């Protein structure tokens, strides 16, 4: 049961369900009939050439982008223009960005506690304890009182992961989390993500790190030109890609 389910076979508890989702940027049809189901605890790696709509797709899941047609359900709640639904969904969905997007004017600890205190209404002391717990999980508790600008890229990205986790999300979205990092820092971030995956977090990861995909993913979703072209478990996808487009992509990314 690791393959993203076709819509018709309704799984017991889908965390994310996208049904016939379309999106346009002006005239440009960025997402074409996206159908994707992600069950609890499932790890999905999304790959594909740049401009294929991977980022746009996961950004639709927490409404950073608005879809124009079709339906998206997150933990049973439908994403509509209703602000209440959007806020409810955003509380359950954590997101890690390519550019970290930490708040530079706040210390690491303040970055981690702001949303729990104001959105989740957690008491400050408890929020700080949670923050320290997650900083330890990402192996940088000693940086708690520094500002983001004082940390390396890899450390910043780990803080960003911890910041999302402090909201106790049910789902984590990763939008090319290692693409802006120097090569020597990629591993420290991937290690944290692997640990998170082993803990059973539901994850959707847009990445070009195929090693990570092999280790962690339950299924690989290959996108091209706004469509989901293929989705398969990693062994199958890497060994026997079904489409020419996937074969071409894999040869470009793996075959040097």
């Amino acid at each position, binding site marked *: 049961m690791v393959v993203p389910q076709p819509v018709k076979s309704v799984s017991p508890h889908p965390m994310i369900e996208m049904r016939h989702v379309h999106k346009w940027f002006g005239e440009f049809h960025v997402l074409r009939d996206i159908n994707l189901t992600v069950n609890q605890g499932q790890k999905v790696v999304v790959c594909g050439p740049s401009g294929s709509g991977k980022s746009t797709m996961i950004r639709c899941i927490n409404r950073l982008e608005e879809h124009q047609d079709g339906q998206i359900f997150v933990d049973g709640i439908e994403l509509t223009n209703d602000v209440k639904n959007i*806020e409810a969904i*955003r*509380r359950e969905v954590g997101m890690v960005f390519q*550019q970290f*997007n930490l*708040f530079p004017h706040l210390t690491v600890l303040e970055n981690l506690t702001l*949303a729990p205190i104001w*959105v989740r209404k957690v008491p400050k002391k408890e929020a700080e304890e949670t923050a320290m717990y997650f900083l330890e999980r990402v192996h940088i508790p000693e940086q708690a009182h520094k*500002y983001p600008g004082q940390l390396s890229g890899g450390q910043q990205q780990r803080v960003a992961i911890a*910041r999302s986790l402090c909201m106790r999300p049910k789902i984590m979205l990763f939008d090319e989390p290692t693409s802006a990092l120097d090569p020597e820092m990629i591993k420290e971030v991937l290690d944290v993500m692997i640990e998170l995956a082993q803990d059973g977090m539901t994850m959707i990861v847009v990445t070009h790190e195929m090693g990570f995909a092999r280790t962690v993913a339950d299924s690989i979703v290959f996108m091209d030109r706004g469509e989901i072209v293929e989705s398969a478990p990693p062994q199958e996808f890497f060994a026997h890609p079904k489409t020419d487009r996937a074969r071409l992509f894999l040869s470009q990314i793996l075959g040097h």
Partner: protein
Amino acid sequence: MSDTQSHYTSPTFAGPKAGQPGRSFADIPPVKWARANLFNSWLNTALTLLLIYFIVKYAIDLVSWGLINAVWEVPGNDTRACRDIRGIGACWALINEKFRFIMFATYPYEEHWRPALVIVIFLALYVVSAMRRFWNRKLIAIWLLGLVAIGVLMWGGVFGLRYVGQERWGGLPITLILSTFGIAIAFPLSILLALGRRSDMPAIRVMCVTYIELIRGVPLVSLLFMASVMFPLFLPEGVTVDKLLRAQVAIIMFAAAYLAEVVRGGLQAIPKGQYEAADALGLSYWQKTVFIILPQALRLVIPPLVNTFIGLFKDTSLVLIIGIFDLLNAAKTSVNEPAWRGFGVEAYIFVAIFYFVFCFGMSKYSQDLEVELSRHRKR
């Protein structure tokens, strides 16, 4: 000239910064510095000597006019001593004589302690507001308290204080009232206008754009005229709004439009990722704006903000055209009396010192604040 200094600058510093004439004296002995920068060629030596001559000459003139030959006191309003030395010595006796008028204008003489105390309250409010440890809810309470105290002192009519109508207020308190409340109210208003101009809601956006462009498009003088002359025409018979209040509103409206564009500049400088990160964490619009966007946007625009504040402080002197006796108008009026006519320079120098002290204070404080608030950028 900088290319001629290489004989003392080490050749490794051959870049454009190599021989900045202003390099600190600590590095180079003064004599050597002067020789290298001021007397390194015929032309430079001549220019240096010429400038020294003028500087010394005018410094001597200024000191002898302002201090040595100055008249400090004229008994019994007899200004003949002053007239005798006109052009040779300053008549500081004017300030001596008219000090209270310039400071408080037509406020009843025996009640002058009240506006004097108001000035002290204003200064105390500035000092408290400048200290970061008061940057919390307490500050609002302190300001409200200050506001009440200022109102009670200026108007009176309670606690056995004699009632003094607004038409008799004047001098420095007026300047401080107009500029302080001008800034204090216009600034939050400008933030709302700037946010509104970037709003997703078309109605709000159009309203804010219209307001900003309309108000910014007319001179403050014309707004003051409208507030003073036209506005009362629209009021029903018998209803009057005080002239000072009308001027205050005009100043607030004007300043808000200007400040809004400064704030908007700061908002535009914030990367999209900051908005997205805040959204993704589930922060509401106002939480995002208050905790994430504004703290970053406002500290980016401290220099232009303070620039506008300083401009506004001095612009309050325009109220003289609608007959309000602010500090500058009081100084101007103080030399109207025949005995003192012609001593405007002394009066203007005196008030210029006040304007300078307040404006320089703002400027200096903002520089410190910038350093303080940009700690997070230090590695």
